[in-house]
């Protein structure tokens, strides 16, 4: 195996370790069905691997990963119309384990989380992207870099997307 390939593999493994959870969360916004989502996560990882050899550090590694993940997510939405399955279809095993001991509190938190996810998945795709990047803690400048729009535009659209998300979460039982 060449040294170049070895370096790329090491970089790739590091990216997956650092951003694997974020990629999984991001895939959640595009696909509610667990088995298909797992496939989407792998596809995103594969796309990152394919693009990695051409990555020259024009943007931060985080931006690079989010760009690829969102672009793959968009293609996925097109390939799998209707874009989202009801959240009832999410498998039980997919729910993260909450270490806190009170079952009622756990149920309430899971409900809130599911309501949030369901609301995010119901948003138009571009608003969904804004919300996901906001929840991932990206600054307006980073969001602008990922989405290819100006920072002013990010601020305006983010306000609109937040309002839609708020309405959508309140609408859900």
């Amino acid at each position, binding site marked *: 195996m060449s040294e170049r390939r070895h370096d790329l593999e090491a970089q790739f493994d590091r990216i997956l370790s650092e951003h694997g959870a974020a990629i999984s969360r991001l895939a959640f916004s595009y696909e509610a069905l667990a088995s298909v989502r797992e496939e989407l996560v792998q596809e995103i990882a594969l796309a990152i691997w394919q693009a990695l050899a051409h990555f020259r550090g024009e943007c931060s590694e985080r931006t690079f990963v989010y760009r690829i993940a969102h*672009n793959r997510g968009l293609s996925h939405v097109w390939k799998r119309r209707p874009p989202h399955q009801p959240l009832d279809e999410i498998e039980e095993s997919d729910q993260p384990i909450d270490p806190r001991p009170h079952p009622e509190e756990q149920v309430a938190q899971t409900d809130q989380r599911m309501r949030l996810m369901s609301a995010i998945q119901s948003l138009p795709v571009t608003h969904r992207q804004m919300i996901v990047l906001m929840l991932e803690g990206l600054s307006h400048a980073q969001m602008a870099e990922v989405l290819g729009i100006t920072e002013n535009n990010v601020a305006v659209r983010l306000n609109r997307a937040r309002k839609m998300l708020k309405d959508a979460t309140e609408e859900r039982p």
Partner: protein
Amino acid sequence: MIEDRELDTWREQWSSVAEPPADFQRNVHQKIKRQDRRFVLGNFLTVIAFLGILIFALYMRRQSSWMGTGWATGICVLVFVAAGCRVWALRRTWRPETQSTRAFVELWHKRVTARIRLIRISIYLSLGWIIFCAVLTAANWGTIGQDVRALPKDWIALLAVCVLMQPVLLWYGAVWFRRRKLAELSEVEKILDEMDGKSVQ
């Protein structure tokens, strides 16, 4: 600093949404290996198919008849023209994924319109090929005609399957593919409109 409790709550809920599966990295590496193998195999089969077509063309050329020469020339021209058209129609539509989402969607739009253009080119090429075959057959009717008269049923079956079915299949294939691509185009335009803030409010 302004406190944004709503955002903090959402972030807290969001961060516990999903973790990658335990064997995630191993699965990805397996997928990469499978893809590498498919890539090598795909290239190998393409080279074999290309060489096969050229050898077939040479073999036909050795038949030293107008028919043989015509087939050989026709197949070579068709293969090179089809490959050239594909490369031309899909130029500047590769490697979009590392670009920003906006650039990616614009490129996606370009890619779909290129595919729709390619369908039109393919129809013209196929029609050209059918006409070429018809002209070749007419030019060699002296030889073929004897066979046709000797085995009329077989030739009629061959004519129905190979010649008459071609335009029908071609038409339905092109219509089906074009409809799919137009639906995709409309979806991409919808996303672009969303990005411009035209359709979502």
